[in-house]
């Protein structure tokens, strides 16, 4: 069988990835530049017996996917800035109640209504800290359609493995750009399905008692095990508790299950880094321009390379350190005021060698923009 090849938008590549991963339920509310995801799914999901619903707002959409996940389904919602803000309370609920779910944020310019049709990467910190309280979660991103597909599949796999919400932080350029996508054969990319409990009917099932490996087997609503799910701090039965030991134990579990697996979750790509003295660090659509300028400067003999981050949270500090610590110049290319740059500075010994190459005017950062900023950084004038 030949692999299916499509020439499509990034948003549709995300749809293909989600369906490949086994998506069964989508709830959403229209917002530019993510709307195409829900439009495609309204057609595709019922055709495979899945469910699609346009809810009354983004809050309701986030809540609905959590409800559907508890009946055993793989679930998705998609939005952009203002809608992502609205989802934050329920996103925290998914963290607390350990509900596998995937949330796409196709970033646009903010704050507030901002610039709906222009690109930005300004929601990196919001993805990590948008909901209140100490917590951890996973955020992935991608710079091209093949990776949008792969990261979407990965997002579902991680959500199921760690019982966690996973955020796919795309941006307007990747979401709307048209590019080739080769859809892998079924089975080519491994799919993680829900881990269900082996505890029999009539035996006490503990929905919130982690196994030795830290994983918590689930039981679908409607099945033989009836248990309580709550956003309150809870014991192993899911019943509310304010016992200090239980509070401490639960918070540690929620954070550790992600942070202790940071190295497994860390995904990235390297280009020309073996001998690079100048290392660009970038992600999402900005990484396209970064790669472009790296290739053209390499042709001129400059020792420059690119570290493209695909996992943004938990922040892959070890990877960044490995590739950037010895470089004379580390330049973070992003379309915000330095949200990833801050994190890179904390990962290396010499923060004064870390620079920011950015644009925050809604215009896509070009290879020439990066080249000019590099000249400035290196004191060569423009």
């Amino acid at each position, binding site marked *: 069988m030949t692999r299916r090849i499509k020439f499509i938008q990034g948003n549709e590549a995300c749809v293909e990835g989600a369906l490949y991963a086994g998506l069964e339920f989508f709830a959403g509310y229209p917002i530019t530049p993510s709307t195409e995801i829900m439009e495609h799914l309204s057609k595709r999901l019922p055709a495979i017996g899945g469910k699609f619903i346009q809810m009354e707002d983004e809050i309701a959409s986030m809540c609905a*996917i959590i409800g559907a996940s508890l009946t055993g389904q793989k679930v998705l919602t998609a939005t952009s800035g203002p809608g992502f803000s609205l989802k934050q309370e329920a996103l925290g609920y998914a963290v607390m109640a350990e509900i596998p779910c995937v949330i796409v944020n196709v970033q646009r310019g903010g704050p507030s209504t901002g610039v709906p049709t222009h690109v930005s990467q300004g929601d990196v910190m919001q993805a990590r800290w948008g909901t209140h309280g100490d917590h951890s979660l996973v955020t992935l991103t991608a710079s091209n359609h093949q990776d949008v597909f792969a990261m979407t599949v990965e997002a579902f796999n991680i959500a199921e493995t760690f019982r966690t919400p996973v955020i796919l932080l795309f941006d307007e350029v990747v979401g709307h750009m048209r590019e080739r996508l080769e859809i892998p054969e079924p089975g080519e990319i491994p799919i993680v399905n829900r881990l269900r409990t082996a505890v029999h009917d009539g035996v006490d099932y503990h929905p919130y008692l982690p196994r030795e490996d830290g994983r918590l087997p689930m039981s679908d609503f409607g099945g033989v095990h009836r248990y309580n799910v709550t956003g309150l701090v809870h014991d192993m039965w899911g019943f509310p508790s304010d016992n200090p030991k239980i509070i401490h134990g639960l918070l540690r579990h929620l954070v550790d299950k992600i942070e202790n697996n940071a190295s497994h979750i860390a995904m990235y790509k390297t280009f020309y880094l073996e001998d690079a003295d100048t290392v660009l660090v970038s992600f999402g659509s900005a990484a396209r321009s970064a790669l472009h300028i790296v290739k053209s400067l390499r042709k001129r003999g400059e020792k420059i390379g690119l570290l493209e981050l695909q996992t943004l949270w938990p922040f892959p500090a070890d990877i960044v350190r490995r590739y950037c610590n010895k470089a004379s110049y580390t330049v973070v290319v992003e379309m915000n005021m330095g949200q990833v740059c801050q994190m890179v500075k904390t990962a290396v010994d010499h923060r004064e060698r870390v620079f920011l190459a950015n644009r925050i005017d809604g215009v896509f950062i070009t290879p020439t923009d990066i080249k000019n900023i590099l000249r400035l950084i290196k004191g060569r004038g423009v």
Partner: protein
Amino acid sequence: MAVNDYIRERFFPHLWCAGCGHGIVLNGLIRAVEKLGMSRNEIVMVSGIGCSSRISGYMDFHTLHTIHGRALAFATGVKLSKPELNVIVPMGDGDALSIGGNHFIHAARRNIAITAIVMNNRIYGMTGGQYSPLTGPGMLATTAPYSNIDQSFDIVEMAKAAGATFVARTTTYHVHQMADIIRSAILHEGFSVVEVMSQCPTYFGRKNKQGGAVEMMKRMKEITTPIGSKKKVENPDLIERGIFVELDKPEYCSEYNQIIERAMGGY
């Protein structure tokens, strides 16, 4: 099955104050479900935040205690993904009609087969007695120390206008009627709303000098009358109780199943 089989005794004593109306609703719910003879595995109870919303944790169903005001949105996800489940949503008046007002009207509009039980004590009990959209003008609350000037919603009228196909009202005084109505609501194929006038002696009762639980419940008897009764003609201020609406209209999940058939048939 015995009444106790529907309760998670492990999680008692409950957190409600003595005389709180919410415990009576729990009782009515159990009686309704017991009569229906449904398996506990087929029932999902979804609730939000408030004293009322804690009811879910005490019942031995699949229970989902969510965030303030959003229970119906979570419930919509449960129901649409597995329509064979019976989904019951107990809510507070603030939970259902203030922060959750939008989800309430949209769930009603869709006519999705979920049963919403609004436990209306006309106050925010859990946060200590602030006024709700059901408190009514002239009443006192911790945030209306002079007198409340906010007009109230009429839950029944609102549910009807939004498209709910089963709408009823009862009180904690009328326990048998409550159980019967809840049973019919659960059996109804569409969005059903049951307003249960409930008492919060701790805040609403005390602030408004309505006495303890017993006095408040007696009052519930005095200020209500069955739908269409002669008493209502003589005293239009009386609040009617009973089933106001019971309509047969397309239910959301059944309609969606037809969409699936069309999409799979490729036309």
